């Protein structure tokens, strides 16, 4: 593109002038932004001599993670510990950068809810090199030389106890007409996830113990995805219309199960002739509401409040040089229609503000 400067023509802005204008713009904008940040930060910051702990969560995508994060924050605040937060939005590389930033800031401890068992290892190694204690929340790391403490939930035992309660109910309720046993459907999680495997195994162990009354006819691999769960349960119910026993490995898949059961005409309250014995795992607000409304028979509950205490105890113990077991498990609790009045309030779902209205 050639430009010829002819007398009388409009002058094309010079590159130097253009650059100066850009520089002015840029300087103004950056200064304004930095001042804004400074104002905000200076306005809300005081000198802080408290212990500082970095909390890096992989995601806040589900109610469980949000509740865990908020309860963790409250627990640290209760103990007068300053919390730095970092959410990686499902990006393991971003989480690595965030954890390394905590390390660079020389925090007193790091709590990580990792994306998976392997990508967390470089993060733990980075903290180990700096001598900063690390507690992993909810997901243990793959075997490696990196040193950390894991606080999790006993997925196997809680699920087994939950499903054993479902088995008891199955013994009290007659199977559908023409059937000798209750036909069962299991909604599994992502089998690359330690938690999903523990829950699947807990389910199978319990069902094995009542094989005279319950037979597994369908296993739905949801990969922790609601759409896949809905499609899988719908297909399972079409292939086996007599299914009368359903367990989902996470409460957050309950809406999918509910939709599929409704579509199959099986969404009935406890005590009705066509009620499907329904169990779930987690303890979220949906499960709490469904228990109260009489649609859900039993829920295996993670005691998130207790887990948060365990996490902070483990972190402070490691920091003080005390011996802390590498894996600390929350035994959880099983909430069902019989103990809902007493144990229900201990469900974290009962504490979160979200109001879930199960439709009939």
């Amino acid at each position, binding site marked *: 593109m*050639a430009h010829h400067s002819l007398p009388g023509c409009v002058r094309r802005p010079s590159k130097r002038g253009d650059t100066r204008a850009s520089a002015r713009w840029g300087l103004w904008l950056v200064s304004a932004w930095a001042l804004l940040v400074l104002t905000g930060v200076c306005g809300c910051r005081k000198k802080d001599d408290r212990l500082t702990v970095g909390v890096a969560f992989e995601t806040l995508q589900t109610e469980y993670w949000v509740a865990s994060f908020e309860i963790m924050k409250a627990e640290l605040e209760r103990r007068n510990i300053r919390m730095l937060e970092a*959410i990686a939005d499902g990006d393991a*590389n971003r989480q690595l950068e965030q954890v390394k930033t905590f390390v*660079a800031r020389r925090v007193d401890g790091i709590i990580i809810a990792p994306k998976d068992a392997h990508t967390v290892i*470089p993060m733990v190694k980075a903290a180990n090199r700096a001598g900063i204690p690390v507690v992993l929340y909810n997901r243990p790391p793959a075997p490696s030389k990196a040193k950390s403490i894991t606080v999790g939930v006993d997925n196997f035992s809680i699920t087994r106890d939950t499903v054993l309660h479902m088995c008891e109910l199955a013994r009290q309720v007659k199977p559908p007409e023409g059937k000798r046993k209750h036909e069962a459907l299991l909604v599994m999680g992502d089998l690359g996830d330690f938690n999903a495997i523990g829950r699947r195994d807990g389910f199978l162990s319990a069902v094995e113990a009542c094989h005279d009354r319950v037979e597994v006819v369908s296993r739905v691999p949801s990969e922790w995805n609601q759409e896949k769960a809905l499609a899988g349960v719908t297909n399972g119910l079409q292939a086996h219309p007599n299914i009368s026993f359903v367990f989902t490995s996470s409460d957050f898949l309950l809406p999918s199960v509910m939709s599929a059961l409704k579509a199959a005409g099986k969404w009935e309250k406890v005590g009705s002739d066509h009620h499907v014995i329904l169990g779930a795992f987690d303890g979220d607000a949906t499960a709490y509401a469904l228990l109260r409304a009489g649609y859900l028979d039993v829920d295996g509950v993670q005691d998130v409040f207790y887990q948060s205490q365990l996490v902070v105890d483990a972190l402070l113990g490691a920091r003080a040089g005390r011996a802390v077991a590498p894996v600390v498990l929350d035994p959880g609790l099983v909430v069902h229609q019989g103990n809902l009045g007493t144990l229900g309030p201990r469900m974290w779902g009962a504490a979160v503000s979200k109001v879930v209205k199960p439709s009939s």
Partner: protein
Amino acid sequence: MPAYSNGPLLVPATAAPPANEGTGARPRRPSGLGSAGLVLMLAVLYFVLLLPVAPDLANIENLKLILSNMLPLLAVTLGQTFVLITKGIDLSVTAIIAAASVAGAAVMALPGWTGAAALLVGSLVMVGLGAAVGLINGLAVTKLTMPPFMVTLSTMMALSGAAVFGTRGTGIYGLPAVLAVLSQEELGGVPYAALLVVPLGVFAHVLLFRTLLGRWLFAVGRNPKTARVSGVPVHRTIVLAYVLCGGFTAVGALLYTGRLETGSPVLGQRIFLDVVGAAVMGGVSLFGGKGSVAGVLCGVLFITLIDNSLDILGFSSFAVLMTKGVVILMAAVLDATRARRVAA
């Protein structure tokens, strides 16, 4: 701002020497306060202004961290720069990262390899895959005359799906230790990864400003019709830009994979904003025909600094996203304003 568009290929066709003769002036590099200088100055200003409230910004560990975080992003952004200069865009870079990560990791994790051999072959597989995807993108854009947006969006979806399908959504582990060393360790304060990315930057600079292909890239981005009349093989140039983009992106994928010691089918899914943002902030025009390696370097520095500083200030990830979005939008507005002024 500097314009790299006044090479011999862009003077009126009647006066233009044949492009493939390679005679005449080369694209001019910035003089005075160019894009790179401006962005660097802004980054320094931002850094200095935040120091009183975030003194950790300047601690040596944090400075090393910023450098280390910059390197893979720089490799990917340099690749994207070739395409942006031709007035294209490659949305598939995130999928190339994921696909290259799992393909390379699958090769490296095969039993029977020694560390260095596994790394070498795995890296070649990654770069080959990236370049192959770039070739497909480039051919679709040129031979099928499809919009780059549509082509690369489709490639992105197909490739992401393939990466997840091929691994069933799980990572690939057991990679050679030398990859972790390359991506995470340092020698005398300089990350080993710099030994890979700095030559890449030099290569990109030489290619853009010292070779005929570089002039063709700028010419095509500035005005493809004029470039074609001037004898520039426009299609071939565009295809090469996408191939280079794929190859450079694969190098970034190698480093990302090494940092996490995992081949992941979801690796790099959220870095597209950073890639384009860093390029635009570094003076690469979304309207084509403009850009420099030094500018991109400073853009990547600035975007990494924003990320790091907001983490240090304890901003939530949502606030970080919003901030980066606003900063990148400002850079894009600035770019559009410049383009309008030049057009006027």
